[in-house]
């Protein structure tokens, strides 16, 4: 398990080096990251059109800035997500953040199995609770679950220490769970009353 990320990092370094020599080779990096970047952006900007707009902006800027990227400083993912983070922030400055609509409406991909229904309900509840979190916590969750970044990379993107990022993520998830549990108890209490 510890070998996989290392091998992956080597592959990625090769891809980045190729793209820096020959911009047409950026395509491989694009294919690798378009999903994670989109999911991260989508979680932060709330609707498909804006998410596509911001995602396009991220990759166009990344391609233009690629010659300035120094491989020794950060992993490429942290660098790319840093651009994405900045694009999201400037997008939100232009247009105030909407609550996560990631949340509204069932997506209906799975057949209705009881377990899945329960899980879907939980997903919906969690989504609403996330919408009530502050921006930093929403950002950490979006980078971790949407972008699929590891904690040290998130720390680089947000300019915090790895330890504090770990703590922040843990506390955020714990707070979400607490809120959901409390809510359930609250519902139970009101039903009894």
């Amino acid at each position, binding site marked *: 398990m510890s070998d996989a990320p290392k091998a992956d990092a080597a592959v990625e370094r090769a891809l980045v080096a190729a793209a820096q020599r020959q911009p047409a080779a950026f395509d491989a990096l694009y294919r690798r990251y378009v999903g994670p970047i989109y*999911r991260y952006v989508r979680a932060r900007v709330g609707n498909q059109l804006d998410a596509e707009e911001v995602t396009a902006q991220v990759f*166009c800027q990344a391609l233009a800035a690629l010659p300035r990227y120094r491989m020794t400083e950060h992993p490429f993912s942290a660098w790319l997500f840093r651009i994405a983070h900045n694009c999201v922030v400037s997008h939100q400055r232009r247009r105030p953040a909407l609550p996560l609509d990631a949340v509204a409406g069932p997506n209906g991909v799975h057949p209705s199995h009881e377990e899945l229904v329960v*899980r879907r309900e939980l997903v919906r509840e969690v989504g609403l609770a996330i919408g009530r979190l502050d921006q930093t916590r929403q950002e950490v*969750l979006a980078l971790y*679950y949407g972008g699929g970044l590891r904690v040290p990379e998130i720390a680089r993107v947000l300019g915090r220490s790895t330890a504090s990022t770990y703590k922040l993520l843990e506390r955020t*998830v714990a707070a979400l769970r607490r809120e959901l549990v409390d809510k359930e108890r609250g519902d139970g209490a009101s039903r009894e009353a």
Partner: protein
Amino acid sequence: MVLAERRDATMDAALAALYARHQPDPAFVDALRRRLRAQAEPLRAAAVEAPFGTVYVAWRGRTIWSAALAESHAAFAAVVEERCGASPLPAALPPSLAKAVAGALRGQAPFRGAVAFPGLSVFQRAVLEVVRRIPPGQVRSYEWVAREAGRAAAVRAVGTALARNPVPFLVPCHRVVRADWALGRYSGGAPDLKARLLALEGVDLEALAALRADGVRLCGSATTRVFCLPTCVAQRRVQRAHVVRFASAGEARAAGYRPCKRCRPV
């Protein structure tokens, strides 16, 4: 996931599911890939002689990225560097592109090739796409463009978008004038350049000035009972004796006229 072991697995799964539910649209992924591929091509520039001066054009692949009147390649390269973040290499335009560009600069045919609008907002790009559809020899107002771009109240934002047009002449922002048919401002060059460009395409500037002096916004045909913007092609065919002039769409409607479907005056 490293953290998963230290946390509630259900919670982790729910969060993972929540963030995984919106996947990028494959059509979008493809379109963006094409855009990036075009952006990865080297930026080149060439000079094209136009009736009103030497226009430099910068392109990547088959997409025009920048155009401007310039004294030299070096002067143009500085402009492009600022707009696109890269300096173009001198080159010769591919023949097909050269023909389309030359035709558009003579005001004979609209430029239908691909154009990049780096750094512009969605609305600004929508504005420039609307402007591209204004035919040579015709003018439209800022209000009209705002309405066609889907935000009727954003008239000033249209002005801003036009001022940021990276490819003047080919995206004909000079065809956008004030609603009272005064020419308005133009950032593409010398103060009379807008008038020169329009005159080259066959716009009757004296007639526009006369409309302005008389407070006329729209013209209609007494035979068809249709009202148009004054430079609409449909309007040009109306015999002089049958031309009716209106100060507003309300006045035209009250007289029993309907708006033209080609120039969409309202």
